[in-house]
């Protein structure tokens, strides 16, 4: 099979991968912020709820989580299509890791910032969203970048529940043509480019959020 045909088949798969990332990333982000904030809640029950979520999804295999959502839940009467199952599994899994990033980021903001915000009579909500969160976000960006890349790569798991993503197409194309070098070589490039785009986007966001802030460094 000529290289340009291989490329276009893989590109279609890459599009599916991008769609998965585009849907799972907002879910993961939402789960990370919700559970990260709940872990700092005044209410013990909420802290526990978030901790259970985080420990469960970090502590078990992402692939098995995916199998549960796609293959096991139907036995309990919950059937969802493969794409949704993939998005939910990946979003919840990466979100659990992100939860710790959010929690750590919020805790890393100097206590004096909260005290100044109290002295200026901001409400607890305003303290969080106007003073603490904007500063915490800057420090969250590098670990969020890691997780976004993890997410891109983890999408390859969905090839195991019949979704025709980049990995799935590569595998079936390789089985068919036996041109493994070209195919898997191109797949590496595809994943790498996707990861690089995300990395650059998150760097830009970090720079934007950190405007004016004098941050630490080696020099």
């Amino acid at each position: 099979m000529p290289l340009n045909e291989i490329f276009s088949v893989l590109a279609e798969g890459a599009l599916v991968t991008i769609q998965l990332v585009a849907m799972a990333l907002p879910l993961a982000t939402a789960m990370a912020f919700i559970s990260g904030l709940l872990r700092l809640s005044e209410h013990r029950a909420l802290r526990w709820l978030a901790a259970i979520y985080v420990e469960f999804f970090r502590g078990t295999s992402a692939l098995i989580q995916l199998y549960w959502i796609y293959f096991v839940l139907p036995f309990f009467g919950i059937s969802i299509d493969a794409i949704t199952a993939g998005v939910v599994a990946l979003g919840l899994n990466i979100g659990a890791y992100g939860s710790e990033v959010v929690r750590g980021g919020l805790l890393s903001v100097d206590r004096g910032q909260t005290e100044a915000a109290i002295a200026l009579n901001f409400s607890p909500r305003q303290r969080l969203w106007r003073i603490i969160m904007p500063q915490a976000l800057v420090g969250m960006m590098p670990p969020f970048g890691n997780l976004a890349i993890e997410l891109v790569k983890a999408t390859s798991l969905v090839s195991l529940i019949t979704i025709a993503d980049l990995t799935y197409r590569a595998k079936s194309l390789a089985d068919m043509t036996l041109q493994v070098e070209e195919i898997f070589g191109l797949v590496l490039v595809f994943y790498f480019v996707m990861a690089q785009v995300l990395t650059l986007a998150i760097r830009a966001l970090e720079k934007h959020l950190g405007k004016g802030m004098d941050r630490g460094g080696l020099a």
Partner: protein
Amino acid sequence: MSDYAVEFDNVTKQFGDNVLFEQFNFNIRKNEVVSIIGPSGSGKSTLLRILMTLEGIDAGMVRVQGESLWHMQKGGAWLPADERHLRKCRGHMGMVFQHFNLFPHMTVLRNITEAPIHVLGQSKEEARANGLELLRTVGLADKADAYPSQLSGGQKQRVGIARALAMRPSILLLDEITSALDPELVDEVLEVIRKLAAEDAYTMILVTHEMYFAREISDRVCFFDAGAIVEEGPPEQIFNQPKHERTRAFLNSFLNI
């Protein structure tokens, strides 16, 4: 209505098993300028932090402008203050911190206007006009659009003062506001405070190590040690004729540097 801006009635404050204040009594009249001096760990800063609601108390009562700070009356019973009550009381006070605690993600002007807009409900135009006026007062009109990271320590602290004043407090709490500054930057900050004290419009409580400044500006100087006022009085008395041995020892340690 009470003549006092601030009253501590039999206040007890502990950190774990460590009792800092026990049955502590202390009053400050309206528009009085009071300096608190004393060794570290004597409870000077804690006093300000209790007032600013950054630290709770274990017993007794604190009143600010006649209103109970840490307790509220509901149906004849005293209850611990809730956030709403605390927010009402905090409105009387402004605090300036040793380490400035400016918001690094905001420009200088926004540091000053953020709370007036979102807490007091001022319009953006009004807050901006007031903010620029305050910056002029502290000599930083040209720094409105700078970020805190671009300022010197003395400039940062002057922004800190402007930020506190923007909330129109009647009581100013100044917590070692020159302790983190290089010596040559201390004066520019003290000059601002000097002007404020001369206006006679604020009750001011300064925790300070600047003895000459405390002597010059204060109506009353209080020497704290181990959570108690060892000696207090007009600055001339405390600095020229301290009665207590501990006061003398403390002041000597300053003069002999």
